[in-house]
């Protein structure tokens, strides 16, 4: 490692201040990663569980839908579903987890009754079933979206913070320590040199006088 610092007292005290700061920052960031990992693990467990649940239920709903399609034919399915009666909206905000802004999503309509947007005369009951299945699944799917996004963002942030911690621990801090040691050595050496020079001068003066 090339040491290119001026061996001066100014530089030494500056480096010492920076080292102190780096050590403090390192400790803080390390604590931050630890806590984020803890939260992440809790979230991701839930995420996995929700995902498996949702995928199963969704596949079942899809299957019912394709049955309905087989019963009714493409044209009448399109006719039944083309015009939605309602608009699904969600209430969104953000939440701060360890200074990562993750989304919060809430379902707005919580009416238990599911409105079917078509007349019963021309549709099969399989279609009703599929729609009802899916709409009862919606709450879970929204929760899944919230949690999965939080996991994505946390994972990314954890990776970034870990890099910072490692950069501080294995690069910045050792580098500064060697620099400080180098400056100290150099200053001591200068001091000794000075002392020897003074002694020599004193000897020479004494010899002159004698």
């Amino acid at each position, binding site marked *: 490692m090339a040491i290119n610092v001026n061996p001066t007292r100014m530089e030494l005290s500056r480096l010492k201040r920076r080292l102190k700061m780096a050590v403090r920052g390192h400790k803080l960031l390390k604590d931050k990663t630890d806590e984020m990992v803890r939260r992440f693990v809790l979230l991701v467990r839930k995420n996995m569980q929700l995902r498996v649940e949702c995928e199963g239920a969704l*596949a079942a709903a899809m299957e019912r839908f394709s049955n309905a399609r087989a019963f009714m034919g493409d044209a009448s399915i399109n006719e039944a*579903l083309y015009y939605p009666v309602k608009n699904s909206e969600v209430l969104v905000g953000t939440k701060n987890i360890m200074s990562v802004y993750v989304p919060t999503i809430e379902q707005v309509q919580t009416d238990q009754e599911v409105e079917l947007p*078509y007349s019963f005369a021309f549709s099969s009951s399989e279609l009703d079933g599929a729609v009802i299945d899916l709409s009862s699944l919606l709450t879970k799917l929204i929760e899944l979206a919230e949690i999965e996004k939080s996991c994505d963002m946390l994972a990314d942030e954890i*990776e970034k913070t870990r890099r910072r911690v490692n950069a501080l621990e294995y690069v910045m801090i050792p580098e500064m320590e060697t620099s400080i040691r180098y400056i100290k050595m150099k200053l001591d050496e200068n001091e000794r040199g000075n002392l020897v020079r003074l002694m020599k001068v004193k000897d020479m003066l004494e010899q002159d006088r004698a």
Partner: protein
Amino acid sequence: MSYKKMAVIGDKDSVMLWRALGVETVFADEPGQVDRAINRLAREGTAVIYITEQCAQMVPETIRRYLTEPFPCIIPIPNKDGSRGYGVESIRKNVEKAVGADILL
């Protein structure tokens, strides 16, 4: 807090059903269409975009771009043929990225 809409992207057979719930549906079978749909929905301020795994696999770049922003949440779902395990795989990747090892099993 504000009200935002939801959307679903995928092949027609898989996403038609979502219309009944009033979720905006976008039919797409090609990478270009999927890409455009995601960007348009994101611009319109859609909160949640469900996307079939098939479509999600077509546009990894686009999905990665929105990964670190709170909105939109792009969530892979199985299509009519069932799950290919893409969603579960992405969770595993997250775990590996964050913890360094797959601890879920």
